[in-house]
């Protein structure tokens, strides 16, 4: 009898211990505080936020964005992400750092992605060593919400250092990498592949104007989460010469046939068929 009771008590304890260990592991893995919640900045698209275990992009972690084509889609995607971090009210800070070798970012263009030039600090460094140093400094400083760097090569050690720095400062680290960059093993929270898609402008008396920027986002790696593939549009909130700040943000790209006004959630799995349909139309 006594024996039996003991084992049942033991069983209960095992469950509790396991839960505790899981919690501990999560804390060790990605700096989640004791409450089990990690501050994150949501995308604003339910489907994508649901795929991410943090309900958005977690701060205090390293995110990798790999560009496709000319890389400008990835550049736009990163600008939009930085802007979301800069505007996030939960963090009580509002500055972001961009380490870029070239001085070719255009302030009016950044503004249409919601990134205010007053919130953006640029470090014009091109050597990988300097980029990583500047990123680490920025991540640790506690003065920023996000840091973006464009190193040409990465090592596992560098990623570990970035992760550690990001955790220390509670700041998100973004790595913008060219297409075809080697997949470096390391503590990366998410890895995105971004490529441009033809926009969905509505034909207008024979003219074919551009629609909103449309990108294919591929979440190819997500720690503790699932992968996915979406086609999204960036709405810059511009309407007849004025800008509506509230209308600015990501949106799942609507189906071609329904016209651009309907925001039907479309998990764009057959892009090829989609584009061929457009070519025919």
């Amino acid at each position, binding site marked *: 009898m006594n024996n039996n009771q003991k084992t049942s008590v033991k069983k209960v304890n095992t469950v509790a211990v396991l839960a505790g260990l899981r919690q501990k592991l999560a804390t060790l893995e990605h700096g989640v505080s004791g409450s089990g919640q990690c501050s994150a900045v949501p995308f604003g698209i339910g489907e994508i936020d649901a795929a991410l275990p943090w309900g958005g992009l977690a701060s205090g972690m390293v995110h990798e964005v790999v560009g496709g084509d000319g890389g*400008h889609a990835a550049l736009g995607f990163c600008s939009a992400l930085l802007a979301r971090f800069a505007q996030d009210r939960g963090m009580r800070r509002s500055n972001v750092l961009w380490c870029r070798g070239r001085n070719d970012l*255009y302030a*009016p263009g950044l*503004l249409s992605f919601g990134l205010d030039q007053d919130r953006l600090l640029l470090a014009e460094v091109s050597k990988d060593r300097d980029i990583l140093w500047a990123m680490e400094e920025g991540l640790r400083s506690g003065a920023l919400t996000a840091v973006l760097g464009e190193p040409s090569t990465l090592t596992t050690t560098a990623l570990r250092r970035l992760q550690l720095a990001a955790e220390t400062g509670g700041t998100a680290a973004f790595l913008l990498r060219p297409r075809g960059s080697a997949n470096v093993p390391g503590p990366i929270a998410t890895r995105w592949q971004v490529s441009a898609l*033809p926009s969905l402008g509505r034909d207008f008396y024979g003219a074919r104007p*551009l629609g909103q920027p449309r990108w294919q986002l591929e979440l190819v790696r997500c720690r503790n989460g699932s992968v996915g593939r979406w086609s999204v549009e960036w709405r810059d909130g511009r309407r007849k010469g004025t800008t509506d700040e509230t209308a600015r943000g990501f949106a799942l790209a609507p189906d071609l046939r329904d016209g651009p006004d309907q925001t039907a959630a479309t998990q764009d799995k057959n892009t090829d068929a989609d584009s061929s349909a457009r070519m025919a139309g």
Partner: protein
Amino acid sequence: MHEWPDKPLASISAGHGGVRIVAVNRAAEVAGLRPGLALTDARARVGELETFDADPEGDLAALKSLALWCARYTPWSGFDASASGVWLEITGAAHLFGGERMMLEDLGERLGVFGYAHSLAVADTPGAAWAVARYRRGDVQIVPSGEQKAALVDLPVAALRLAGKTVEGLHRLGLRNVRDLLNAPRAPLVSRFGAEPIHRLDQALGEVNEAIPPLRPTPQFRARMAFVEPIAQTDDVIEALAQLLGAVCRQLLQAGLGARRLCLTCCRVDGTTQERTIGTSRAGRDPEPLARLFREKIDGLDAGFGIEAMILSVAATDPLASEQDEMASSAGRDQDQALGHLVDRLGNRFGPERVRHLQRQARHAPERASRTVSALVPSKPADVMGDNAPAAPRPLRLLPWPDPIDVIAPVPDAPPLLFHWRHRPHRIIRADGPERITPEWWREDPELLNISTERIRDYYRVEDTDGQRFWVFRAGFYRPGQAPKWYLHGFFP
């Protein structure tokens, strides 16, 4: 410069009428050789004379570095190139070394170690010290306060820093020493030699004030630390620096100022100095972040055989209200400070021009509408009327100079159907435009003229089959029979 006690030695250079002696050592001086003597005469007098070519630039550099090294004694030092001397203004500094005599003995000992023959004197006036150091025998001489006259009367008139011609003229009149000059009537002297002899005499006696021209502006805020044993470890330097920063920051706090630029001078035991300077984007007097800025620079410091003294001086300051230190609790201010420290750290590592802010400007030309400014320089308010985004979409990335492209487009004014950029064709399926951007005729802007002689541009936003979006423009008006020029200017994501 180095003392060879036994053998006569002289430096020589080509002078008036042949090779002449520039400087001699003590042995040669005892043998009767003087600067200015022809080398042939000198050889006739002293057969074993060793000579080497004079190096006036090297001498000057050595003198200057010695004057800088003397910062360990006083912040106010200068040098006298024509007479190979170093001035030190030691008012208020001598007590740090146990009095004037102790200070001079310490200085003499160190100069001896460096191998410099020297003669040191202290007096109320620079002129008296100069005269005594050069014309009275003895290693360390101190002229008691107010007794310049007694010290000078027996010295030759040359001790008054007079030009050679003046000295000759005075000799011809029988005025050989300072006493003669003192007793001579002044008016005829002035009419004959100008004001120089009398002015120099008054300067030496203290009748006329004379300031030593300082090598460096004397910093208002400064802290100094000398070590009993020279230090060479980076940790020791950092530790000493922390104390110096603490002292300087206390001075700044009392003055209600913050440092914008700080200079650390390390005096090495070999009589040379190493300097490290840091700049900050905003005035600060918090020792910890300033120390962090220095730490990057100290890694490359060459301690040589050891550092015997460190001097920290504030080269530039800005007003800083005192409440900032006490009320740093507010989160926003913390953030501001943290950001400022980050900017400083990045700027001190990569250079201030590498850490930048974007700024929008109210300009028509797209390449003028955005520019970057150094984040370390306090930014002026941007030259923008409203805070709204531009009416038409603008690219995310703009080429600094528009890139010419080959375009197939219907004339006279239609968007391109196809263009080649960097040998790759882009077939256009969608296009917006044109948006005409005209030059700012009210501004003279030569750079705009360089980009294209046709200064009116029609911009199109175009999208190719892959969904890549570009900003292209056609320069100038359509003219029949003339192919329009097209340029690629930017990229939309």
